């Protein structure tokens, strides 16, 4: 269960040694080397590779691309898309846009937070779920909406949202039991 957190620690320790991410990182940096104004695109690329922006990678980019670490950190914290912590296996984007708000998205948030015992922007201790609130997924006519790993669900009620999440939890438990046999 603690696998995800261990892996990410390993990544933190030696980004150079993990061939799976090292190669794509080099390709990414090569693509943007010498092109001015590419910092946002570089960080987006890093997040695609690692799922978040590891501190070590940001330092590494500062070093090799000759950008001030403060500037990288400034950009990374300015935009909501960038994450400084790893995400869980299931990334829940709960819409809190206007249409979803007037259709009761607050209640969905209360129910999910209570069920998973996490607040927005947090990940469950087993590394399974990360909850993020976003403003409008563009599916306003299905409000209230949440998106889990790219799949939109709506219109939600607290009950329906919990059923979806419990379904995923059950699926994981089964996989776990199946795996240990």
């Amino acid at each position, binding site marked *: 269960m603690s696998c995800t957190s261990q892996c990410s620690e390993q990544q933190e320790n030696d980004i150079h040694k993990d061939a799976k991410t090292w190669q794509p990182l080099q390709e990414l940096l090569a693509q943007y080397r010498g092109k001015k104004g590419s910092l946002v695109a570089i960080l987006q690329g890093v997040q695609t590779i690692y799922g978040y922006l590891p501190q070590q990678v940001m330092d590494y980019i500062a070093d090799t691309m000759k950008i001030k670490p403060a500037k990288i950190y400034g950009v990374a914290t300015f935009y909501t898309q960038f994450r400084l912590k790893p995400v869980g296996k299931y990334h829940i984007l709960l819409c809190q846009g206007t249409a979803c708000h007037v259709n009761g998205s607050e209640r969905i948030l209360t129910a999910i937070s209570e069920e998973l015992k996490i607040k927005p922007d947090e990940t469950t201790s087993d590394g399974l779920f990360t909850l993020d609130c976003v403003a409008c997924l563009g*599916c306003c006519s299905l409000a209230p909406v949440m998106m889990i790993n790219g799949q939109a669900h709506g219109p939600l009620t607290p009950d329906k949202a*919990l059923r979806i999440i419990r379904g995923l939890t059950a699926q994981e438990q089964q996989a776990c039991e199946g795996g240990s046999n």
Partner: protein
Amino acid sequence: MKIRIGLGSCGIAAGALKVKESVEAEIQERKLEIEVQSTGCIGMCHAEPLLDVIDEQNKVYSYGYVTPKVVKQIFADHITGQSPVEQYLISAPEKDCDFLAGQKRVALRNCGIINPESFQDCIEHKGYQALKRVVTEMTPEEVISEIKQSGLRGRGGAGFPTWFKWDAARKNPGDAKYIVCNADEGDPGAFMDRSLMEGDPHSVLEGMALAGYAVGANQGFIYCRAEYPLAIQRAELAIKQAEERGLLGKNIFGSGFDFEISIKQGAGAFVCGEETALIASLEGERGMPRLKPPFPAQSGYWERPTNINNVETYANVPWILVNGGKAFSAMGTDKSPGTKVFALAGKIKRGGLVEVPMGLSLREVIFNIGGGIKDDQKFKAVQMGGPSGGCIPEELLDTPVDYDSITQTGAIMGSGGMVVMDENTCMVDLARFFLDFTQTESCGKCVQCRIGTKRMLEILERICDGEGREGDIELLEEIAVKVKEGSLCGLGQSAPNPVLTTIRYFRDEYEAHIRDKKCPAKQCKALITFQIDPEKCHGCGTCARKCPAKCITGEKKKPHVIDQDLCLKCGTCLDACPSKYRAVTVE
């Protein structure tokens, strides 16, 4: 015979891919020769997934709320049996659809009709005709003059005359000039630009190329928010298709005009919709707005003259150049010519995208086209312009939708989001919601915006929490003026609008919160309690099982009670209680 399936984001979210699979399976099973096409969003998002059957005479039968089961029925009765399935039919040759009847589609002319991934479809629907004629027959000045005649005003919010910006960017000197398409669509509750990019990307590209020709730019960027992956994917494909055929790139139509377009993804910041912040973000910086002038048309991307327009603005341009500026200005009103796309959402029966001539009344849009309020509740207000806009109450429903009339109500036209609210929406909570949004999204550069919105939010939170004080309303009004006056960009200048309009039209609701500690709409958690009526409760236990806080107890078949100390006030019990009992109440 053809079958067409709506595969926009909303359709896919509603299950359109499953519908497509079952259509393909039926065709195979029945060994039929039917072409299956996918298309973008026609705008009837409330009825998704949508499926059209187009017969040999090109007559279109549109079905809504389609599931794999309905597909089976359509194949059995309509396709092989020749009699349409009335129950799911939303429009047919002899059956007009209220939703589409009052509309006039210019920007959305191809959305929901063509296959956005098919270049052939684009060409058959007059794609790139305007560009061909313009670059081979017209001078840039003539293009600008045609746009001037159309009276087209920017669809991104402020409604600035498009020709004027083009003219300025053309006349300002620079060794390079740029065209930017603003597809950041930050207003939560609006999705016009997404649908346009998903449903008809070539029209946007063509509009940008035309602007490039008029301004003298050879490079264009689409700045699209990352939350719209499908829009980005379709625009990328469209760029590739156009490049392969020489409609973008070098020497377009042999005219010597070069124009290329690339896509840049936003990274999630509302303020990046503001044009100077957008440029900073394009340059890889934090998206902080700066003082204007210089305007982007003078000094924009890398300090070169840059023209920024909204997606919908560009989508109108090819139509204008094919049909003439006069045809465009013949629609709409004197000062707001043409049509405008609106995203109808919230408590509306038929939510979706509508495009109407400017000057139609709000009532016509919301009731005739949108079908009125969901669950036959009573209309309370419509929010226009998102976080920069305001709420328009029932007594102003006959206001015509055009830039100037809407501004007079205290709201703004904005990009076209219309969120409809019924009696169950608390206007104080709504103001708090928007302030929470703008306060989080404020980039922090201006003190008044950074700190003023924070103070306003605190006051609104305290009113919603039942801790409001006498004088709070006046204090809100006072800070609002300071924030408006002391902010550099549109975000701060307009952030107080939702608060000011709700105070203007719903002051009694603020007073009820502050003086009587009551929330008339029964939404503010601190001011309501959920209760179970022991007379009505049959002890079925449904609510107790569903309560996420596990705070409902009681013996089987005996009245249950809610532990008020543990209650989260999520309202799950209210939904869960079977309608034959209705034992849960809110006070």
